C-alpha cells in the first residue's frame, strides 16, 4: 500500500514508469502495441489462448544464435500451428544503433524468416519495463486465463553458440507443452540470459 501511494505520488510528479516485473502466477499486465505493419494488438484480445512474449533485438548475438540456428523460427511455427499467439517485441530505444524503424524491421523479419504472430516495436520501452524484460531474448508465457506461467530464459545454455541449441533444454517449449497437457509448469521462472534490453 505504501508503495502504491509512493507510486501515485511519483506519478503525479511526472516520474517515469517504474520498472515492474511479470511474476509467474500473477496476472499478465495488459498492453496495446502496433506491429511493424501498423496493426494494433492488445494482450487482452488474446484471452483464451496461450501467448508467448519474446523480447527481440536483431543486433544481439544471443538473439542471432537462436535465429541463425533456426531454433526460434521453428519454435514460432510449432506453437503458432497449435493456436499459440507469439508476439515478438523489440523495446529498443530509437536512439540506439540497434533500433530499426517499422519498415526496416519488416525487412529483418523477412530476411530472418521470422514467424511470430506479430512483431511489434515498444519504442518507449513501457511494455518492456512493465514486464521487467531485462535481456534479449527474455521470454514470457501467458496462459489462456491471462496469468503469467513462465518468465525467463529461452533455454539452459547461456551462450551465443548456435550449436548449443541442439543440446539445450528449451524452457519455453517445456512450459507450453506442460501447460497445454494440463500439467503445472515445472520450471516457471529462470534467469534470462542475453544482451540487456536497449531501453
Amino acid at each position, binding site marked *: 500500500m505504501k508503495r502504491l501511494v509512493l507510486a501515485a505520488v511519483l506519478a503525479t510528479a511526472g516520474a517515469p514508469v517504474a520498472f515492474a516485473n511479470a511474476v509467474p502466477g500473477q496476472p499478465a499486465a495488459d498492453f496495446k502495441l502496433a506491429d511493424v505493419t501498423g496493426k494494433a494488438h492488445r494482450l487482452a484480445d488474446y484471452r483464451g489462448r496461450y501467448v508467448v512474449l519474446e523480447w527481440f533485438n536483431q543486433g544481439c548475438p544471443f538473439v542471432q544464435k537462436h535465429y541463425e540456428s533456426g531454433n526460434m523460427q521453428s519454435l514460432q511455427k510449432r506453437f503458432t500451428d497449435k493456436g499459440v499467439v507469439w508476439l515478438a517485441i523489440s523495446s529498443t530505444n530509437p536512439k540506439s544503433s540497434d533500433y530499426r524503424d517499422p519498415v526496416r524491421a519488416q525487412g529483418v523479419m523477412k530476411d530472418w524468416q521470422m514467424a511470430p504472430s506479430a512483431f511489434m516495436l515498444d519504442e518507449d520501452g513501457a511494455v518492456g519495463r512493465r514486464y521487467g524484460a531485462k535481456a534479449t531474448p527474455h521470454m514470457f508465457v501467458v496462459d489462456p486465463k491471462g496469468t503469467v506461467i513462465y518468465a525467463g530464459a529461452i533455454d539452459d545454455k547461456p551462450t551465443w553458440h548456435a550449436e548449443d541449441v541442439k543440446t539445450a533444454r528449451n524452457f519455453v517449449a517445456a512450459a507450453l507443452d506442460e501447460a497445454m497437457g494440463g500439467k503445472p509448469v515445472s520450471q516457471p521462472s529462470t534467469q534470462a540470459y542475453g544482451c*540487456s534490453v536497449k531501453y
Partner: protein
Amino acid sequence: MHGPRSLLPLPMIRFLLSLLTVLWTGLAPAAPVQTPHAEAELIAQDTHAVPGKRTTVALRIRHEPEWHTYWRNPGDSGIATRIAWTLPDGVTAGPIQWPVPERIPVGPLANYGYEDELLLLTDLQVPAGWPPGTPIPIEAKAEWLICKEICLPGGATLSLSVPTATSATRPDPAHASAFARTRASLPSAGDGWRIAYSVTDTHIVLDAMPRAGVNLPPSGLQFFPDVPEVIDNPSPQTQERVPEGLRLLLTAAAVFTGKLETLSGLLVAGEGADRIAVEISAPYPGGAPKVRAADPNAQMSAQDIRRAAGNPEAAPAAPDLGLLLALVFAFGGGLVLNLMPCVFPVVSIKVLGFVEQAHGDRAELRNHGLAFAGGIVVCFWIVAGALLALRASGEALGWGYQLQSPLVVTALAVLFFLLGLNLSGWFEIGTRVQTLAGSAESGTGLGGAFLSGMLATAVATPCTAPFMGAALGFALTQPALASMAVFTALALGMGLPYVLLSFFPALTAWLPRPGRWMETLKQFLAFPLYLTVVWLVWVLGEQLGTTAAARLLAGLVLLAAAIWAWRRLTAAGGAVGAVVSALFVAAAAWSAWPVDEPDSPRTGTAHGAWGAYSDDELRRLRAEGPVFVDFTAAWCVTCQVNKRVVLQSDSVEAAFASSKVARLRADWTNRDEAITRALAKLGRSGVPVYAVYPGGGGDPELLPELLTKDLVLAALDRAARDRH
C-alpha cells in the same frame, strides 16, 4: 633428429622438448590480440615458474572506453567471461580470481562488470617433476560478451610460454604494476566476519559484523550477490548502523522465491586504498519478501527494519530519507483524511460555512481558513504531545485510543446530537453551537473556525486512513522532534484544502449563491450528524453493552427535553425555565454518563468461525496451519466496511472454509494490551490491520487496509499453498 628414442640420452630429450616448445609458442603469438572493442593478452606475473609451486597468469582485457565485460554474476544481462585452459599434463589451473566488479547501470537495469583494464588472475600448479628450464606451454580459449549500448561476443585463443627455473621467482617488471593493482582489488576471505540474513516485507536484510579491528565506513557499503535473481540489481542498497556492525537493506528481486540455502557474494565498502572487500557466505533463513520489488526506489520504513531485526529495542538511527518519506506519507494521509467517512459530517459543515462566507470579506475569509488549519495543527500537536508524554511514561498506546474511552464517545455523541438539533432548527441560541463547526460570525468566528479545525481532527483520528498507519507507527517510534514533524505534516495535509479555498476564493466560485436553499441544505446536513450519533451510540454499545447504549440514548432525549423546556418556559418566566432545563440537563448527564460496568463482555469473544485473539491462541493455531487475523474495532468504519463487504462475503467465507486457514479476530474496541503489543510487533499502531500468519513460523503477510475480495482470496490461496 628423428630416431629411436632409446638411443637418445635424457638431456637430449629435454633439449628437444624445449626446442619444440619454443617453436610451438612461436607459432601461437603471445602478443596482444585485437578483438572487437578490446585487446586481449595472456601474461604471467613472475619472470618464471618453479616446479612444485604455484604460479599466476592472467587474461588481460583492455576495453575500449565505455565498453565492459562481465563479472561472475553478470547482473540483469550479459555473460560472465569464461576461460578454457589447454595445459600440459600435470599442470592444473585454478578458478578465475575475480576482482571487485563495478555496478554498471544500463537504463532501468544494472550489470556487474569491468571497464578499462582488467586482469583475470588464475593460479597454475606446476608439478614437482617438471624439468626446470623447460618452459610450460599454456593456451587459453577465452570467451566474453563485450557491451556498450550494443553487445558483441568476444573471444580469443591466447597462448603463453611460461619459463621455468628452480631459482626464487620475482615479479616480471613488465606487468608488476598491473598485477599489484589487481591483487589490491581482489576480495579477501571473510574469515572472522559474522554475517546474518533476515527477510522483511520488502527486503532482504544483511547484517555484517566485521572481524575485530576492521572498521567499516559509515556509507557506501555494497553487496554483490553470487547468485542471480536474489536481489533487485539496480535498487539502491540502504545502509544502517547497528550496535555491532552494519546492516544493508537489499530490495529483493521480483522473481526471488526465497528457496535458497546459502546466500553468498561480495561485500565491498570504501574507496581506493581504504577499500574493504570480502567474500561472504551465510545460511539463508529461507522465505522471500512478501512485497516484491515493483519500484526499485522503494525505501524501507524504520519499523520494517526493526521488525527484521526481531528486536524492537535496537532502534537504528532513522535515515533522513525515511523521515522525509514519512512526512510525504503523512501529508498525503492528511489530505485523504478529508475524504474519510468519519470526517465527512464535519466537512459538510465546513462547506456550509464557506458558502456563508463566500460573499463576505476576503481577508476575513483567509483568516478563517488559516484559523481552521491552525486548529487542525494545534489539535494534532496536542494529541502528539499527549502521545509522546504517555509513551514516555511507558504506556503501550495506539492511534484511535481516544475512542476507546467511553467518556469521549459519549461526549462526542452528545456534541453531534446538539449540532444536529441546531442544524435541524430545533433551537437557535445567541452564540450558536454551530460556530464550533465553522460558521463565520465575526468576533467569535475566528475562534469558531479554530475550534472546528480541532473538532474535525478529533473525529478523524479513528479512521486510520490506508497508508497513514505506517507514518503514524513511524512517528510513534521516533524521537520527539520527528514525531512532531510527522504529525504537523499530517495536520497540514488535512488543512490544506481549506486554506486553499480561503486564499483563492475563485476556487469557491463554483459554490452556489446563498439563498433559501441554504436553510434546506443546513437542515439536510443534520442527517449525517444524526448518523454519526448512531455510530457513536453503537460504538458505546460495543464497549459497554446495550444498557449503556440505552442510557446514552435516554440522555440524548433528556437533553432535547432540556432545550425544549428552555425555549418554552423561558418565554413565560425566566427562572422557572432555567431551573427545569437545568434539571433535565442533570438527568441527561446522570443517564448518559458511562458507567464502566459492561453488562456482558463483548470484546475478545468468539464470533462464529472467528476465534478471539490471544497470543496463545495464535501460537496454538499456527502449529496447525496458517492463521488470518482481523485487527478491528467497532469505532473503525474502514474495519466495519471491510468486514461486511469482504470478510463476510460468501466467496471469502467459502475460501476460508476450503483453504483451512484459521480465523482470529482481535477486537480493539476497548483498550487491550495484548492486541496493542501484537499491533506494535507488526509495526502498526492503529486498525484495521489484516495479517496472514504462515503456519509454523515466519513473518506474517500484511494485507492493505482497504480490502477487496480478490485480495483476500489471493492471500488465502497463497497461505493454503504454502502449507503444502
